[in-house]
């Protein structure tokens, strides 16, 4: 056996024993981002295509669209940042109840002009998007007349329009910014593109901890299950779980292998199955949900210890520690 083959032998064996998937910016765009955006576009189009006013059919299609949004909602960069789209799609948290107030006002006025797509796109972000639809599909008072259903259809159309625009802008140009960093890109270097994606992973984890968990948890003595995300439709825990699954997919597409990160995700996903965020006024449930916050902190630490150095990127020198 030749010397080079001797050296190659063990290396090959190692490679075969532990196949290392390719992972980096390009894989993240191809395997995580674009498929997720396509799902969001397709599910919102399906919702918008419903002509009936039957709440059941609309609720199911709305649920599928929300599932798809949670799969990409952490990707706060590029087209979703333009024109206030991220807020217009998902206006939550809403501590002052602006959404309900403004929805009530729209229903009271019942202005048909608002239903026109151009005017709907200019309505307050608080009445639009997934949460605007949730209030109409699970009304606190029995709806009367044709207007609530027409408004539902108009908001669904507006949501589908935004999803399609985001999807199209990603494919037409923004993906290219990430894939081809340089002087004409939003990202000057590959490191900056990696940093942008790593940042979405970290801020996505923090949103789950601080908002999806932190808002209903409040404090042990004063929990607020009613403040959970999408509590009216009963999606709060599902959103948390789907988001963590999506963030694990993002982590996997950014770098491989990531055993510590995988273990941390395994732990939080196992524990999330034991939690119901609508029940956090029960002290036992509160404690179980509180453990998820620690589990998410552990995921964040694993990501920063394992993925960040591998990418040669952090979350931003100034962003990390302000003054």
């Amino acid at each position: 056996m030749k010397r080079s083959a001797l050296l190659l032998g063990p290396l090959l064996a190692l490679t075969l024993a532990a196949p290392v998937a390719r992972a980096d910016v390009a894989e993240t765009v191809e395997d995580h981002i674009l498929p997720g955006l396509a799902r969001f576009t397709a599910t919102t189009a399906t919702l918008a295509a419903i002509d009936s006013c039957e709440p059941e059919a609309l609720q199911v299609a709305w649920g599928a669209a929300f599932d798809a949004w949670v799969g990409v909602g952490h990707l706060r960069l590029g087209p979703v940042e333009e024109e206030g789209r991220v807020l217009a799609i998902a206006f939550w948290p809403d501590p002052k109840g602006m959404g309900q107030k403004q929805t009530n006002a729209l229903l009271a006025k019942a202005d048909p002009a608002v239903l026109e797509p151009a005017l709907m796109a200019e309505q307050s972000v608080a009445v639009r998007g997934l949460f605007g639809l949730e209030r109409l599909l699970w009304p606190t008072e029995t709806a009367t007349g044709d207007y609530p259903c027409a408004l539902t259809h108009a908001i669904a159309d507006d949501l589908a329009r935004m999803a399609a625009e985001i999807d199209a802008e990603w494919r037409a140009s923004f993906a290219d910014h990430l894939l081809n960093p340089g002087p004409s890109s939003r990202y000057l270097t590959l490191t900056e593109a990696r940093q942008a994606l790593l940042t979405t992973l970290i801020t996505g984890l923090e949103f789950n901890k601080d908002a999806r968990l932190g808002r209903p948890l409040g404090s042990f003595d004063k929990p607020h299950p009613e403040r959970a995300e999408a509590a009216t439709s009963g999606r709060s825990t599902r959103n948390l779980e789907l988001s963590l699954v999506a963030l694990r997919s993002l982590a996997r597409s950014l770098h491989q292998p990531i055993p510590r990160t995988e273990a941390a995700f395994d732990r939080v996903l196992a524990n999330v199955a034991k939690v119901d965020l609508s029940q956090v006024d029960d002290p036992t449930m509160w404690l179980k949900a509180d453990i998820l916050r620690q589990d998410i902190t552990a995921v964040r630490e694993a990501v920063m210890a394992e993925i960040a150095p591998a990418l040669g990127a952090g979350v931003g020198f100034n962003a990390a520690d302000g003054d």
Partner: protein
Amino acid sequence: MQRRSFLASVLAASVLPQLSWADAGDPAYLAAAQTADGAFALHGLSLAGESLFALPLPARGHAATAHPTRPLAVAFARRPGTFALVIDCALGQETARLTPPAGRQFNGHGTFSADGARLYTSEVVAETSEGRLGIWDTASWQRIGECATHGVGPHDVKRLPLSEDLLVANGGIQTDPTDRTKLNIATMRPNLARLGPDGALISLAEAPEDLAQNSLRHLALLSDGRAAVATQWEGDPAEAPPLLALWEDGRLTFCPVPEAEMLVMQNYAGSIAYCPARAEIAITSPKGGAVQVFDAAGRFRATHRRADACGVAPAPAGFTVTDGNGAISTLGAAGLQPATRLDVKWDNHLIALDRA
């Protein structure tokens, strides 16, 4: 003053003719940075973003201030600060090192008197975070006094134009003397205090009650005697209040942004600058990866994106913006364009050397 720096200054004075800012290569800006190997430095930058000099700092820097006539800069440590370096930018060396007295901490900013004879340093009483301005003689670099800032946790301080009066941004946040932990978020009460050169309180501007958790932190002076202040919201992160306010004669007016722009900055403005040529104000948010531009009346104009953008200072046709990825960008009519990049992480502030 230390013996060595005393000798250095005597030597400089006797051997060399009076040096000016031109002898320092006429830097347009000063900026602190972390270098690739993890050390810290203060750079003098040209308008185009070339580094004209880089002097080592003993720890992470924050802001700096330039002497009005001599090519001297004082670079301040990040709070809680234990040092401020007086740097001769022409000789490329440290000429004095200021240390706060026992029980005081530097808070990252300072400013010179109009004639440059005095330096004012933003400080806290370490135990309570009560604000103080340290007063230093710039011939001997001896501390000659201090006065109250009439608030808690002062941060930026600027001397008002055509005046010896000082405007202090009392951020309102009490912090643990050892680790920056915030201690009084529920009860904080920031203000902008206008002080006479002797420390007398001339006016005190407070935010309305519902914005009491909006820490008033960084200042930019406008051409007409007003000032703009950039804030950091410490209240409910879902609320997204305005992060820019205009100060005029002791009154504050907050400048809201359109609904779609509300959360762009992630409730955090890290730096602020005013560009006289375009009559525009820019605030930066490294957390949001964005720069927002307003007109001089505080009306929102545009958002520009750049990850970890924080340092901002006026340029001839707009602004220069620095970020944690080492880029130096121009921001003007053509939007935000990275112009050059160094292998450093630019820290919070870019200081324009707009000497009279």
